[in-house]
């Protein structure tokens, strides 16, 4: 019941907010109200979830199931394990932040804030559905449906090339979705052969997984895998992301890269591995190769970007490589690391996107070269950028370190070569973060976006007279109160999860151990405590 409310509440919110076209402020307040209630409900869900029950073998909790289309054996079935729970928590935290961030965003002419906020709520609802579905067909429906509000957010509220980016995003995802649909149907047919009557229920499908022949598994696996690899995205299916990330309004970009893309990696972990264990093991080298290419290729491309938002997108491609590496290395530590990575990436890249958005709002340009020396006039903004960047490069003490470390440590025993290559990737991560920081934030004030905003006469390279800086900085203001309020929870999460990941890991661990059992492998390194 709790999950159903979590699913429907934002949808109701979307319907309530959508008509408020003429009263933007009320629309925003109502939308924010809905998202905050969702946050409270998610906290309730968090505490309703029993780690002890999960440890003793309960696969899903807070379950709800009604017949949907009895002829096909589909159920409207919801339920969560620890992995889905942490994703729900991530959504619930990010949505209010995205709303607060977008409060003063310029809305393109002819569009209304009500529409944008309504779409955010619709996205939230569908994302809850995609993570909470325990029926494969239902999952497919949500998987496809969540494209829709995102398509409109990019296509109606985005940057100059928004149409191109939105169509590309939509068609690419749709293509993956259709291939997956074929696999979903195939799975239904196979289940009919194996179990007597076809089913879409995840638990039943998982139970029969071991008896499905490997050749069949490989075809079905590839169907799901392709959809997830596009969504995640893995190289070489990634080119829609930089376009979508760059053209999407920042708020939508945060949801897109922070949560929506995680459906791909979540899909690997929830569908590919437990439903097709043989195929997963056989094809693991292929996926690992793509993952490691993604880590290095994404990082090198991030280094070479000239556009701030495309830069963030490429860093994400590198990060998705780490997640995929963890998932296809088959150990509890790597699984837990990959799951935690999904959450942490949402927080740190979400923050990076937001900070970049703050920068772009001030300077009016997306180009890295149009900025320089921002720390002189906006030290808090520069500091926030650095915090997000340090989390992105997985500095110990930040949240991302725990997840990246777990992925690498957990992957090494089974996959030393891939892991060594991936570990080299952390040098590139430091390079792309610090180099962009240096170009935009450090050094003397320069760049047309900064100088233009400051209305400086001296031209590039002039040092700002300290006496004038206070007056002039009004053109390029430091963080305001609302912006500080948006960023503070993210910074707190980055630090707290860096030092105290325990509560989150405790929720994740029983579910990844269950996934290990479903794959049929034991941990390569048992550790001393067992």
């Amino acid at each position, binding site marked *: 019941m709790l999950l159903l409310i979590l699913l429907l509440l934002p*949808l109701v919110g979307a319907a309530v907010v959508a008509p408020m076209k003429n009263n933007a402020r009320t629309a925003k307040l109502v939308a924010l109200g809905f998202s905050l209630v969702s946050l409270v409900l998610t906290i309730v869900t968090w505490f309703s979830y029993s780690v002890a029950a999960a440890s003793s073998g309960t696969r899903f909790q807070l379950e709800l199931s*009604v017949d949907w289309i009895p002829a096909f054996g589909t159920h409207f079935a919801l339920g969560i394990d620890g992995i889905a729970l942490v994703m729900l928590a991530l959504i619930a935290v990010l949505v209010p932040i995205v709303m607060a961030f977008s409060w003063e965003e310029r809305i393109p002419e002819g569009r209304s804030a009500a529409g944008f906020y309504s779409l955010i709520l619709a996205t939230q609802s569908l994302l809850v559905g995609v993570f909470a579905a325990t029926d494969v067909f239902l999952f497919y429906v949500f998987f496809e449906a969540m494209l829709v509000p995102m398509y409109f957010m990019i296509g109606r509220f985005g940057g100059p090339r928004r149409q191109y980016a939105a169509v590309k995003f939509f068609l690419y995802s749709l293509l993956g979705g259709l291939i997956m649909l074929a696999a979903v149907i195939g799975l239904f047919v196979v289940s009919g052969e194996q179990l007597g009557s076809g089913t879409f229920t995840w638990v039943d499908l998982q139970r029969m997984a071991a008896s499905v022949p490997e050749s069949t598994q490989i075809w079905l696996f590839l169907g799901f895998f392709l959809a997830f690899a596009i969504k995640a995205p893995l190289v070489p299916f990634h080119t829609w992301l930089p376009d979508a990330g760059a053209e999407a309004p920042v708020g939508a970009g945060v949801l897109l890269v922070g949560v929506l893309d995680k459906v791909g990696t979540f899909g690997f972990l929830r569908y590919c591995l437990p439903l097709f264990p043989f195929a997963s093991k056989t094809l693991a080298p292929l996926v690992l190769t793509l993952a490691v290419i993604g880590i290095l290729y994404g990082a090198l491309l991030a280094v070479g970007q000239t556009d701030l938002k495309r830069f963030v997108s490429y860093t994400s491609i590198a990060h998705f490589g780490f997640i995929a590496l963890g998932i296809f290395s088959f150990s509890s530590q790597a699984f837990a690391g990959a799951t935690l990575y999904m959450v942490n990436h949402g927080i740190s890249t979400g923050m990076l996107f937001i900070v970049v958005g703050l920068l772009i709002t001030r300077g009016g340009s997306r180009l890295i070269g149009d900025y320089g020396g921002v720390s002189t006039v906006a030290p808090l903004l520069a500091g926030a950028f650095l915090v997000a960047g340090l989390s992105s490069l997985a500095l*110990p003490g930040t949240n991302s370190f725990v997840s990246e470390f777990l992925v690498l*440590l957990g992957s090494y025993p089974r996959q030393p070569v891939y892991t060594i290559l991936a*570990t080299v990737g952390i040098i590139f991560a430091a390079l792309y973060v610090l180099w962009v920081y*240096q170009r935009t934030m450090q050094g003397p004030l320069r760049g047309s976006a900064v100088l233009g905003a400051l209305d400086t006469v001296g031209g590039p390279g002039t040092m700002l007279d300290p006496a004038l800086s206070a007056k002039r900085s009004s053109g390029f203001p430091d963080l305001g109160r609302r912006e500080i309020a948006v960023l503070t929870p993210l910074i707190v999460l980055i630090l707290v999860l860096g030092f105290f990941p325990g509560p989150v890991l405790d929720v994740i661990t029983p579910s990844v151990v269950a996934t290990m059992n479903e794959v049929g492998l034991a941990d390569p390194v048992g550790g001393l405590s067992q």
Partner: protein
Amino acid sequence: MTELPTVEVASGITSLAWLLFVLPAAGSLILFVAGRRANTWGHWLGVLTVVASFALGLAIFFQTIGMSADQRTTEVHLFDWIAVAGLKVDFGLRLDPLSLTFVLLITGVGSLIHIYSVGYMSHDPGRRRFFAQLNLFVAAMLILVLGNNFVMLYLGWEGVGLASYLLIGFYQDRPSAATAAKKAFLMNRVGDVGLALAIFLLWTNLGTVQYTDVFERIGQVSPGTVVAITVLLLLGACGKSGQFPLQAWLPDAMEGPTPVSALIHAATMVTAGVYLIARTNPIYNLTESGRLVVALIGTITLLIGAIIGCAYDDIKKVLAYSTVSQIGYMILAVGLGPIGYALGIAHLLAHGFFKAGLFLGAGSVMHAMDDNVDMRRYGGLWRKMPITFVTFGLGYLALIGFPFLSGYFTKDAIIEAAFTAPGWQGWVFGLTASVAAGLTAFYMTRLMIMTFFGEKRWEELETSDGGHYHPHESPLSMTVPMIILAFGSVLAGFLLTNGKALATWLAPSLGELREAEGGALPHSVTPWLVLALSALGVLVAYLVVGRRPTPVERPERVSLPVRAARRDLYANAINEAVIARPGTWLSRFLVFVDNRGVDGVVNGTAALFGGSSGRLRRLQTGFVRSYALSMLGGTVLVAAALLVVRFS
């Protein structure tokens, strides 16, 4: 195999050891968060937290020294940091003679540097930020040495990297500072990869990352893997300690304010590599070839540092390369194994005193000389700043190994031990270290003469803003720390090595210091050889620099070796040619491939299906949109239908 101490749960004041790093960390956090509001009192909070940490460290030290040697190793478990299935990473501390020694060095010298900075940074508008970062540095370094497992070590390890990044780049508006900071962080990360991989290997083979368990079980690991682990750990040490081939960041780190240089070079950061190898001595004890690599790296570095140190005119860079060289001695020492671990730590402590003193002295000189670092503009300063001259002079004598000062005891001991290495190693290590001692005497004497003696070249020169130089002695807050450090420079070596006090104290952590025996040169000869070479270095420096007037402009027509040394023996050029430039090209090339190639295929396929005419594309767009809308509508309908089903 090493005899391992029993580990007990900490009691009494030792159980408060977490305050050691929490105090400076809290100071840092408060200063960062409070912002401008803390500008008036922030620096005193910074000083207070480190001094309090030092006082606590002393208390723990005295409690520990009151116990018998086999009870001096204790642990404090704070909480489970990262625990998944079989993996358990403690957030826990290990207090033993080795970590306590470092705690006293870090907080003791750190306190003096903090106090000095109050005066040094008094005119800087960023002083509060400076103290926040300085506190962060101390906190990270304390975590590094206090952690009871490899992941805690890694936390401190990269934490130190962050703090140095912030402090080297402290003058944010200077492009050179930003570049130097980035370079330091990146070269450190190369080393960090080594450390990380070593941790993965330990986990794979032993199923644990806790020191106690690793050291107990390391004997089960195959010899080849042990060598791999030691080499990877060494790579980490090279990054942090500025050892060959990752030494190039250390001199650039001089872009930070001078107290930072003192902190990096004396009390924190560069000593981490030596700590790492000393801490993991049970692993290194198992592999002779692993130790040989360490000793070789140390030997190469100590020579490189000494050669380049001879060529620079920038007072801070000379001292920086001197650090590179001196850390090389320490790495050589710990690479010698049980005959050298304690010697390396002894030299590290002595060096901590005199190098901190030298850097603070250099800062004092710069303070007097309008922040100019070019020694060719100095000269005859001893009259103008007598306290700086005397304290700096004592540090100088300690460094070159003047009889009965610190360096004489600690550096000579390393050279003696180096000569006892078996076969060719003894000759190579011993002779290189001796020659480098001579070079050290040369470059330091050159520095002394150019700075404090000779004509006052600054009298005829103008400062960067067109004024005149008015050298003057620095305020008390700066000179008092210098005086204290000068006492340390004089006495530390004798106190540490007398009756093997330090080696005995460290024995529970490092094993008994084994007497070095045999070897290439008899023990009676080595001190004289080193002394002779050092005297020669002083003499040559006097003849070359002291008896001739120093030109204010740097002579460009110099011999090839000098030119090479001025260019850091081409380390940066090699990095540039081998890594930086190909990397940039690769990145640009890949961006092109991604846009035209990978995305080209995608768009090409789309175009194939969609057709290329504008009319069709409009159709297509409309199609997608209406399709999308109908999907959304459908979903809502399904949901609504469901609700009806559910609640009817």
